[in-house]
């Protein structure tokens, strides 16, 4: 695995908001096919790190490269086209659309119909293309076991289901790298188990490289190939789950003061 060139390479990324240093000189790389987790206390800069990868934030310093291409200056939509998909810590579905349309939006960059042949629907090939992609979306829907709500308005769903629909939408993009920001936050045990299974399947069956932020240490230790720990915007450890757990900096910074890892305050992703 180490001999391959990394799919994602973060070099000396720093991110400053006014006086706040959200990230300081963070470097790491993720190999194709890995399931890589980022952990750390609240406000450590985990979401900020994902935002730098997905293009929501541009690092103040340092660079992000994806599949060997420097994407530091690219806009989020261009990165989506290159194959980066993500879900958000606080939900970010298209609330008034139904579940199916939400997922179809994920196909946006793969669809070719437009404002000219889309309106001509039956004549310009748009119908045929839409139906083909609909088929793919139905596969995603089956995989994530949400077929019973496919016509429901996204905004009316329960929290757990919305998280799942968001994952479906990101999967529909067919990304090579999928970024998951606390996919299991606020879920009960059963929902967490389902979600863990989906993530493993995405990684192993669908061949997606996964970078995941998660507070549930049990899940992180169980399913991750490697783990990175952030604290106050700095990387304090990186390695195999067991090694990271044994690291004394980690114990001190994160696990030592562990009070409860359940619901976190949501903040702008």
């Amino acid at each position, binding site marked *: 695995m180490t001999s391959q060139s990394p799919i994602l390479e973060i070099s000396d990324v720093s991110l400053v908001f006014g006086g706040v240093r959200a990230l300081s000189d963070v470097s790491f790389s993720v190999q194709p096919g890995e399931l890589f987790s980022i952990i750390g206390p609240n406000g450590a800069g985990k979401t900020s790190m994902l935002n730098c990868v997905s293009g929501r934030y541009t690092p103040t310093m340092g660079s992000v490269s994806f599949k060997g291409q420097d994407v530091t200056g690219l806009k989020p939509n261009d990165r989506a086209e290159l194959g980066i998909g993500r879900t958000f810590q606080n939900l*970010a*579905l*298209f609330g008034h*659309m139904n579940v199916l*349309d939400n997922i179809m*939006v994920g196909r946006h960059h793969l669809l070719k119909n437009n404002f000219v042949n*889309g309106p001509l629907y039956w004549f310009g090939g748009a*119908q045929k293309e*839409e139906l083909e992609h609909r088929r793919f979306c139905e596969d995603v829907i089956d995989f994530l076991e949400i077929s019973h709500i496919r016509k429901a308005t996204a905004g009316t769903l329960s929290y757990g289901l919305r998280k799942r629909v968001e994952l479906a939408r990101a999967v529909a993009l067919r990304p090579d790298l999928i970024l998951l920001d606390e996919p299991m936050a606020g879920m009960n045990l059963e929902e967490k188990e389902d979600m863990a299974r989906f993530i493993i399947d995405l990684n192993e069956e669908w061949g997606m490289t996964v970078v995941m932020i998660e507070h549930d240490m049990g899940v992180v230790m169980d399913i991750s190939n490697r783990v990175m720990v952030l604290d106050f915007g700095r990387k304090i450890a990186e390695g195999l789950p067991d090694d990271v757990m044994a690291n004394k900096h980690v114990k001190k910074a994160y696990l030592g003061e562990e009070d409860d890892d359940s619901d976190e305050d949501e903040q702008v992703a």
Partner: protein
Amino acid sequence: MAGFSLRPCGDFRTTYRQDTRIFDTTYIRNAAILGIFAVAMIPFVLDGYYVNLFIQISYFAIAALGLNILVGFTGQISLGHAAFFGFGAFASAWINNTTGIPVLLSIPLAGLMTAAVGMLFGLPAARIKGLYLAIATLAAQFILEDFFARAEWFTGGSYGAAANPINVFGYEIYDDFSFFYVALFFLVVMYLLGTNLMRTRDGRAFVAVRDHYLSAEIMGINLTKYRLMSFAISSFYAGVGGAMYGHYLGFVSAEGFTILLSIQFLGMIIIGGLGSVKGTLMGTVFMVLLPEVMESGVSALSVFEWASSTAVTDGLAYIKEMAIGLAIILFLIFEPDGLAHRWQQIRAYWKLYPFSY
């Protein structure tokens, strides 16, 4: 309510194709087709007054659908829609008068020209939103009005421009009776195109931009492109509606395209339902008929002795003018989702009758 569907029991969909149809059921589709045929009978059974009302409804409804694509579906705002409507009217007359291109072709061409102008004035939308965008589009309204008054080569200045009648296969459409069918044709075509747009890629992108622009961008949607595209398509519809208006009246003058008409367009889509294609049509019907109904109400009252004093007739005239504003306010308060939503409720009620759950 989540996965609620209005299909009758036993009407299952077995292919994705059936599931993506415009109308929920074959029954509704047939009803709609029947409805179009019924409307097509209007010139034969009703008098010219209703034919004229329908023609008004059709060109306003086309322009209003454009505004709904911009405001209701994409979540932007425009206070200058009437100016684009006017631009389309002048453009089509100008194209036809200067090049001799047949009117039937100059109408869509005027739509394209208006789309280009709309995109130009939509440029600020790439950077600003909300109130600031509203002000920017207000500027478009006034700049274009000024342009209409000054650009004599294009609009005829204060004299206005003559617009030739539509010519279909050598047959000139002078009277309301035959224009009615041209209007019906344009209405059906433009609404079908709009409906299809909203169920394909770019229409979904509009709604995505409206509902959550940050995640739309993460899903690969170029925000600037779609915000501008929405202005272009919106103006295209305004331009086509305006062009029809011009060729219907036979004459275009700048006075009609004021901010008042822009507000009325907004009224149509608010009353009909933001983000609803069929609601747009309902809202337009409402807005065109409201003054007519008020008018006949007022004249019905005038048979009474007390109603013929000048104080009362003046008062009634005011009420008539205020009715539109009042209707918009009442809808915003009591039915913010518009007529389309109310219609949905009524359908749901009858489907479930007599059980109210």
